[in-house]
């Protein structure tokens, strides 16, 4: 069971194909699999459908795959930070399926948990509910949402042991665990790989059963909105 690969390109070897569905972790630019995104750009895989809360910015995150026109469709909740995204969307080159943020996260979690559909109140009475099955439970109306079953998950964690047990750091956890769960193959990029036993078994955020390939590398970790306060305000 060899899970550790030398670099992102090797970790992706044999799993990419045109037209595939990829689930990606991250929120904004926080906790995004930046090394795997760059390697997918270099591989040139086309017609991708990507389930990801956001679409990066023009020159970083998933934005780099939009620049190279490798993306056919995005499944996202918020895409406001990306001018190239908007250009391609408004010109009809790029499809967009808006998902409420919690519905997107739950669709991934459900897919990874063997649940093909679930009912939620989110979106009832809005455009999101159009064409979806409605059902009443205890006098409340819910809509049916479907689990996401991705061909590939690309995620970012803080640390992994060589068996794929993962630990995330602060709010960079975000969509990474649910995205990791819903892929047939899950590749994780981390800042540090340690030996089994070095992570506290009581503090594993995602067990290695979900993780197939691991790569370690240097991360830029760009900040989208640097916001600070002055010491004298404290």
């Amino acid at each position, binding site marked *: 069971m060899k899970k550790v690969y030398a670099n992102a390109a090797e970790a992706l070897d044999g799993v990419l194909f045109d037209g595939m569905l990829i689930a990606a972790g991250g*929120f*904004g*630019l*926080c*906790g995004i699999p930046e090394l795997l995104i760059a390697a997918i750009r270099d591989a040139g895989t086309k017609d991708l459908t990507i389930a990801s*809360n956001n679409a990066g910015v023009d020159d970083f995150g998933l934005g780099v795959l939009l620049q190279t026109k490798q993306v056919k469709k995005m499944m*996202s*909740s*918020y*895409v*406001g*930070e990306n001018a190239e995204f*908007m250009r391609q969307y408004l010109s009809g080159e790029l499809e967009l399926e*808006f998902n*409420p*943020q*919690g*519905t*997107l*996260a*739950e669709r*991934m*979690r459900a897919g990874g948990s063997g649940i093909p559909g679930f009912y*939620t*109140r*989110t*979106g*009832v*009475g*809005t*455009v*999101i509910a159009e064409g979806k099955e409605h059902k009443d439970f205890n006098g409340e109306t819910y809509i049916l949402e479907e689990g996401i079953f991705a061909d590939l998950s690309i995620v970012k964690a*803080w640390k992994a042991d060589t068996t794929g047990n993962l630990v*995330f*750091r*602060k*709010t*960079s*956890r*975000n*969509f*990474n*665990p*649910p995205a990791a769960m819903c892929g047939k193959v899950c590749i994780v990029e981390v800042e540090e790989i340690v030996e089994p036993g070095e992570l506290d078994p009581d503090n594993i*955020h995602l067990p290695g059963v979900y993780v197939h390939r691991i790569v370690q590398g240097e991360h830029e*970790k*760009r*900040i*989208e*909105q*640097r*916001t*600070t*306060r*002055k*010491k004298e305000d*404290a």
Partner: protein
Amino acid sequence: MPWDRNQMAERAAQELEDGMYVNLGIGIPTLVANYVGDKDITLQSENGMLGMGPFPFEGEEDPDLINAGKQTITELPRTAYFDSATSFGMIRGGKIAAAILGAMEVSEKGDLANWMIPGKLVKGMGGAMDLVAGVGRVVVVMDHTNKHGESKVLKECTLPLTGKAVVDRIITNLGVLDVTHKGLHIVELAPGVTREEMIASTEATIV
């Protein structure tokens, strides 16, 4: 004098009670955090955090620690982190007592529109649809009229909805309105604002 942004936020902070877990939206709702005073309030950030702290000091920003507006923030002794599915589980599951959100339009039935203007740039609903469908109480804070002077408190929303019959209370620069089965009920008027002025500025039915 109608309330300004900070006074609206200060009034909205009165909605919060000791022990509440609360989600604050972007814009005026973010300012509410400045007015909670001694109340024991835990702020949720839907990207996966309970116990959101203030902005960091310069040089102490952490790229792994941001709020739902993607701003750098800090943690508190009580902070807990979790993934997005868990975060929206607690929202959808009614564990978050209240959300204070901005709006483009609100109807007298409590319908909320705050995510999309057809024909204009569509950025997405983010977590707003989940929040209004799931949290215990939804309080909207917004200007009473738009920049053309038209009422944002309407009989029916004209913009695509974020949620249907989800708003409990509306706080505007003119005062505080509650959504009731019969129509909107005036709870409070900003200093110097008369009931007649409130009714004249509101397209919706005030009872």
